[in-house]
């Protein structure tokens, strides 16, 4: 059916526009171009790089042996089942998402027998990925943390951390975002002492964002001993922990161990938030399966907090999308599926460890200066090489090997051969270039070696 009213013809040329007396200036004329997302920029630079054996090592996904993202046969089978299931209806889910999903996601983190669950003081909300969970948590804190006082921060993030985190809190209206030192360049691991020093200085009721396991982007985590020290500090200073758990199971190959710090805090009766993602552990990146867990001190506050969380969700995205959550819920609710999934996760971890060991071994054989043990001490998706900004730039510009500017990379991409490439394995090449890169820095004395603070 054609439009009936437009006798003028469309808005074609500028003359037409002028003839109607409309101003020529766009209302968006003052909108500046946003600086590109660092990751987008890195990928764009990689894509325009014409060098034949360029390698991208900053990917955010887990890869299979063929160098592709994939879902396990189990997940594939369940997706088929869901597609043909006549009992499933397309209705709006609740703002909290699928109840079976939130229940299982909660149990996965806290353990089924957790006191907090038994005492009914836990709120679970399905979110749009981990980002959605962090955003919802930030909105909840901004609106409702300590109603009697005016709270607008501070929130403490690790240095370094995922580059979108600060922006999420700011978007929720929390401007006071600070850093605590985390990655120690010299130690090539977590600088616990400096971290504790920074946190001792934080004001009471600060929110501390902590990586439960598989820290992004360094892959370096606290030991259990240090977690105990940290939680003592948090209790003493009345800090509020906001955990990030983007890949439960993919750090140690054990879901309980990966969630241990969260369980520790819950067992101490602390209130906490925990943002979870199921992207990596199920290969369901595109489905945006996330979860926000909120543990409260008293069950009497649960209904009120739940009602306010619903309000926040309504204003963000109204309700989440269900397909991915349904798959996860189906797996986690079925004991046999659950075991199969855990085993799959474990083998992903074993493959990851193999790559790290291979990389370290190559570097040792090449006689690369420095210690590279940290490569195998780190866990999860990422690995922080400890290379500084100049070294990373050298790798990018001269060797066409792309790492995060902070020296972090995804070891899985070392093993993957991109389609059509001549090389089957990158690890040897990467090792050689890392080695040469480090040698070169030592020879050229005018270049600084410590990592600038991020």
């Amino acid at each position, binding site marked *: 059916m*054609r*439009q*009936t*009213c*437009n006798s003028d013809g*469309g*808005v074609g040329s500028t003359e037409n526009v002028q003839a109607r007396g*409309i101003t*020529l*200036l*766009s*209302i*968006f004329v*003052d*909108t500046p*171009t*946003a600086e590109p*997302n660092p990751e987008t920029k890195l990928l764009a630079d990689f894509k325009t790089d014409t060098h034949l054996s360029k390698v991208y090592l900053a990917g*955010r996904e887990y890869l299979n042996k063929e160098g592709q*993202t*994939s*879902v396990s046969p189990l997940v594939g089978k369940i997706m088929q089942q869901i*597609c*043909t299931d006549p009992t499933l*209806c*397309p*209705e*709006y889910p609740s703002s909290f998402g699928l109840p079976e999903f939130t229940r299982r996601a909660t149990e996965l983190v806290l353990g089924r027998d957790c006191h907090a669950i038994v005492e009914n003081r836990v709120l679970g909300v399905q979110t*749009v990925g981990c*980002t959605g969970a962090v*955003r919802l948590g930030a*909105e909840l804190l901004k609106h*409702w*943390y300590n109603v*009697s006082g005016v709270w607008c921060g501070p929130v403490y993030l690790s240095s370094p951390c995922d580059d979108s985190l600060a*922006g999420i809190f700011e*978007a929720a209206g929390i401007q006071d975002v600070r850093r605590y030192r985390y990655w120690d360049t010299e130690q090539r691991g977590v600088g616990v002492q400096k971290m504790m020093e920074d946190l001792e200085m934080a004001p009471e009721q600060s929110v501390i964002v902590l990586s439960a396991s598989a820290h992004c982007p360094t892959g370096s985590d606290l030991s259990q001993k240090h977690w105990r020290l940290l939680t003592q500090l948090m209790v003493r200073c009345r800090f*509020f922990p906001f955990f990030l758990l983007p890949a439960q199971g993919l750090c140690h190959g054990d879901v309980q161990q990966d969630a241990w710090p969260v369980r520790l805090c819950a067992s101490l009766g602390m*209130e906490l938030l925990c943002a979870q993602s199921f992207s990596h552990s199920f290969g369901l*990146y*595109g*489905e*945006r399966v996330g979860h926000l867990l909120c543990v*409260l*001190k*008293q069950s009497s*506050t649960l209904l*009120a907090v739940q009602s*306010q969380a619903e309000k*926040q969700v*309504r*204003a*963000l*995205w*109204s*309700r*989440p*999308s269900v*397909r*991915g959550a349904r798959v996860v819920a189906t797996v986690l609710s079925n004991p046999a599926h659950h075991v199969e999934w855990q085993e799959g996760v474990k083998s992903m971890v074993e493959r990851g460890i193999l790559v790290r060991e291979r990389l370290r071994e190559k570097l040792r054989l090449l006689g690369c200066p420095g210690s590279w043990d940290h490569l195998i001490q780190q866990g999860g998706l990422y690995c922080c090489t400890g290379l500084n900004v100049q070294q990373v730039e050298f790798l990018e510009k001269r060797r066409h090997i792309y790492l995060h500017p902070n020296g972090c990379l995804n070891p899985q991409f070392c093993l993957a051969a991109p389609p059509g490439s001549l090389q089957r394995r990158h690890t040897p090449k990467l090792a050689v270039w890392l080695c040469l890169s480090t040698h070169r820095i030592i020879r050229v004395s005018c270049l600084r070696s410590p990592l600038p603070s991020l």
Partner: protein
Amino acid sequence: IMSLFGEVPQATPVAVFKLSNDFKEDANPKKVNLGVGAYRTDEGQPWVLPVVKKVEKIIVADNSLNHEYLAILGLPEFRSSASKIALGEDSPAIQENRVGAVQCLGGTGALKMGAEFLRRWYNGNDNTKTPVYVSAPTWENHNAVFANAGFEDIRPYKYWDAEKRGLDLDGFLGDLESAPKHSIFVLHACAHNPTGTDPTHVEWMQVAEVMKRRKLFVFFDSAYQGFASGCLDKDAWAVRYFVTQGFEMFCAQSFSKNFGLYNERVGNLTIVARDSDNLKRVLSQMEKIVRVTWSNPPSQGARLVAITLNTPELFAEWWDNVKTMADRVLLMRASLQAKLQALETPGTWDHITQQIGMFSFTGLNPKQVEYMIKERSIYLMASGRINMCGLTTKNIDYVAESIHETVVNVQ
């Protein structure tokens, strides 16, 4: 030690959710839910569109599709085909490369992204004080979305005339004339929620004239395209007219209703700019906003819609499915009106067939609504809004009789 959330007050429940809950708990076998916001078949069941079932199978069988993250702004073929649906395949704005889009989480997500952008970048870089006008009445979540995006001044514009049970055009135009320049107006593209009353073409032209002259921002909410009249183009008339008038604008589209994909959250924010350079800058800022809200959108629903819209046979089948839904609604409207007339229910009931889309403002007052709920177990919103989809050939007599009884006994 006290919880840090110890003083959080209980939020007022969302009215339509509460209504659904009360309905669920009602034991009366004759109960009818006219508050539900989704399509129902004549058996009172949700309906998976046949074309959707078909495309789901295609997707599951396609081994080349992966589960990787979508781009931040979403699936490109979804965004462009969705915008084409709103603006028309041959829209000059599209041909001039000044139309862009952001895939969002449903219509709500699209409104949210648009609101967040406007608060930051429209008319200076702090629009917390810029007035946002929403119709009186409107979908109750409009207020929350804009308020949460940081707008402090959200006002109603006159829209529904309760006495004449129609559009208050003079009031509407009056509010447009008196609104501060650059105010943002949320317009319902078609099938106004909750009144079901849309301006005529001539009335839209009058609205556009004032908005252009007074430099007001056009933000369309299009949740029912195709569902209102059964014809996609007809339902998009207002949006397309504004484009031909040279407006830059946002249009928040939802595919929840017209694809029956309520739970996959398929939405699209279409952006019409003066030229491609402005568009590019706007999209770059949108990316930043998306990145800190949900990072990238879910793939399933968008893929499904994109495949449907871009495959001619599937597109035709979809159009047909949409018409099926729209026709059933029109049938229920006609039946209800006929029955009320046959019963000689006091008052006029023409508005039931004059209104369009899923909803109808019956004109029942709060006391009458309460009577309907308590005495007849017929659930509708306190505003008198009913969802025509809740009516079936089996319950329509009961509903008509109940309305009759209510109007006669309760004033």
